[in-house]
């Protein structure tokens, strides 16, 4: 049984860090479609890949990973939209956890859009 004491220790550690809460308006947002269509197409492992990848890269304070409902392009799910203030929205389609890793490396870390995953072949 994992103890709640551990959680207390995490709180004490985190409270020392000022401003751990990112400003949503400023940072990059990774939005994963999590309606029936997305989930059935495999959105959950894609979402987990982004959550874990962003945390591992230490980008948790700059990038928000979140979910949305169905945007009406069910046949292209799992869909991931990446928005950044001042830039056009990038929509990745038919995502997989492996493609997510590539997007984290190229797009999230280095700002290079992975064009081959944005259009439908």
């Amino acid at each position: 049984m994992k103890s709640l004491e551990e959680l207390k220790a995490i709180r004490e550690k985190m409270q020392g860090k000022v401003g751990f809460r990112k400003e949503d308006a400023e940072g990059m947002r990774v939005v994963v479609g999590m309606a029936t269509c997305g989930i059935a197409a495999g959105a959950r492992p894609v979402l987990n890949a982004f959550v874990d990848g962003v945390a591992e890269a230490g980008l948790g304070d700059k990038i928000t990973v979140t979910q949305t409902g169905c945007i009406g392009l069910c046949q292209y799910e799992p869909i991931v939209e990446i928005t950044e203030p001042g830039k056009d929205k990038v929509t990745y389609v038919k995502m997989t956890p492996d493609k997510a890793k590539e997007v984290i490396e190229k797009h999230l870390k280095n700002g290079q859009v992975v064009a081959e995953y944005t259009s439908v072949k």
Partner: protein
Amino acid sequence: MMTELSLNVLDVAQNSVKAKASLIEISVRSDFEKDLMTIVIADNGCGMDEQQLAAVCDPFYTTRTTRKVGLGVSFFKLAAESAGGEFSITSEKGVGTTVTASFQISNIDRMPLGDMTATMHSLITLNADIDFVYNYRVDDKEFTLDTREFREILEGVPFDVPEVSQYIKEYLSSNKEEVDSGKIL
């Protein structure tokens, strides 16, 4: 069609999120003596009126505007009914909605439960404003996760901070392991 029951749970719980619930209670209980698995998703969201409730299991009914079908509840119902189980949904406007699905554990057509840890972890960390109570039971062993308890300890540190998120994932997986001894349900 979903490939695991845990994906149905994730999907149906999204309805509770959209219904602006502040508390969502999810329980997964397996009783091998009765050969029965029961999954309940209960929320205190906006609820449905009688007309909506009557239509909710119709795959061609949806309140959304981005597409014309609503398959989430239908899939879950089908999963239960094709595995020797039952499905019910009760709702009251302004009070909330409860979805109950049962399954014959040994039924060859029962989908595997799948990764409930991933489902609960996603729900909890992505819906920071909603409280979740998750109960997982196999025969006489069980554990309960109550995010209100976590919230009290965390004093404002959010669930999506990587350290907290990781703790929640480990809390879910280690307790699950203790309850089901790693048995694949």
